[in-house]
């Protein structure tokens, strides 16, 4: 075993040992009579969730394995993601900037993580065209992540010299103060393209409609279903739900990432079959199948 691997194994073993020591001491320290101690290491009421998660993980990992072996994987065209390149091209022709809004949530939201991944890809594309990329951010924790994602994008395109750190700006963690500030950026700087990708709430229509009034091409994407109608009416292209999460695989075309996309599609197919089967059985008065999916 080489030195590097030995260090890695040692670090993991140390963390695991400390962890179990903490678990045992934390259980002893729990002295509140109001909270009875539970010594079970697995909640059998959630076994069905565990199995479902195992199936989903298994499908994703299997397809990643297939992708690593060089199998080509087909992914359907997603108009919204193709439009990102088009939007950047339009901004270049007009000599204007691209505004990237990564949603209003913190890094603990998976949509923000997905948005940062897309930001890196977008930054790589933009770096080639030498136009400004403005990224206004609501949550301070996202700022260094966005800076690093954009820096890495520019670096991958060999244009680290064009990276402007001040274009990644913390605005305010207040929802409507953020919306007002970003609307102001849209109206003053008149970006040619607005990319609204991430988790949005009430400010989604404010941003999208203000962007539409400036004549910018707008691509939006969110998994927050209640905001989708506003993006659909106000934006040129909308990524719906999972299309946002598919973006990293779609834009990079990296086999491992495409494999994970296929894996989640397989899991979706299994769920669809379960729904159809459950509907038929439930209609026929057979209840045991539906009961398998009750989460306690």
């Amino acid at each position, binding site marked *: 075993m080489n030195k590097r691997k030995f260090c890695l194994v040692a670090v993991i073993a140390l963390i695991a040992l400390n962890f179990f020591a903490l678990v045992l001491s934390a259980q002893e320290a729990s002295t509140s009579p109001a909270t009875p101690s539970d010594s079970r290491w697995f909640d059998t009421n*959630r076994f069905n969730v565990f199995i479902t998660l195992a199936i989903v993980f298994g499908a994703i990992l299997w397809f990643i394995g297939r992708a690593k072996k060089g199998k080509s994987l087909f992914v359907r065209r997603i108009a919204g993601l193709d439009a990102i390149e088009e939007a950047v091209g339009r901004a270049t022709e007009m000599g204007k900037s691209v505004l990237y809004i990564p949603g209003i949530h913190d890094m603990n939201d998976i949509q923000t993580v997905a948005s940062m991944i897309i930001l890196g890809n977008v930054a790589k594309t933009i770096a080639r065209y030498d136009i400004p990329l403005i990224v206004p951010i609501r949550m301070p924790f996202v700022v260094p992540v966005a800076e690093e994602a954009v820096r890495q994008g520019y670096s991958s395109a060999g244009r680290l010299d064009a990276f402007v750190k001040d274009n990644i700006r913390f605005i305010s963690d207040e929802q409507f103060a953020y919306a007002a500030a970003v609307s102001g950026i849209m109206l003053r700087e008149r970006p040619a393209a607005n990319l609204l990708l991430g988790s949005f709430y009430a400010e989604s*229509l404010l941003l999208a409609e203000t962007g539409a009034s400036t004549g910018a091409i707008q691509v939006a994407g969110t998994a927050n279903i209640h905001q989708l109608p506003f993006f659909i009416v106000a934006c040129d292209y909308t990524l719906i739900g999972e299309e946002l*999460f598919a973006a990293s695989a779609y834009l990079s075309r990296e086999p491992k990432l495409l494999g994970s996309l296929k894996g989640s599609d397989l899991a979706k197919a299994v769920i669809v079959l379960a729904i159809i089967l459950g509907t038929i059985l439930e209609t026929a008065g057979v209840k045991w199948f539906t009961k398998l999916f009750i989460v306690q």
Partner: protein
Amino acid sequence: MRKEVPLIITFLAGFFFIADYFIPHTGFSNIAADVNGWAIIVLAFSYILGVGNVLRINAQRIAKKEKDWVLKVILVLCLFFMLGIGIFGGIAEGSIFDWFFVNTYTPMQATMFALLAFFIASAAFRAFRVRTTQAALLAITAVLVMIGRVPIGETIWKSFPDFTEWIMGVPQLAGKRAILIGAALGAISTGLKVITGLERTYMGQD
């Protein structure tokens, strides 16, 4: 090790919290509660990053007297003013901070939210043009739900609210659930890629 250590931390933390959902062991739950507490503290400290970012960017622009630099001076002054009166005067009811909050921030926030009523009108006017069959379905359904969800719908037709509830409770819900399931699977897939280190773009490393 610069690349590996963050990935190890991500891997262990990710699987720890997945495990927390399945493991009811008191000791384990107590550790999860402690880690959650650390997360709250770290999140609170991240505001220092945010304030630093605001000050750095605006200070440069003020120093260079760029366009609208006066507005940036006001921004920075307001930042320090509210910070100061909050720290030294407290934020309880009756404090100066509370007065500014109730009399400036609250009305401004309500104003921004109120803009939505106008923006939805202009967006609907622009977008609901019946160019295709899908556009027609979208426009007709939107109009039916809009009218059915307010008392005037019940005045026009007594069963309008029930019809609207049916649209919201059956076809709308079916479509929504489908999107929810897809989005949830996408989220699981992204989470798994991040935890296992397959996806590292967010870390700024290839």
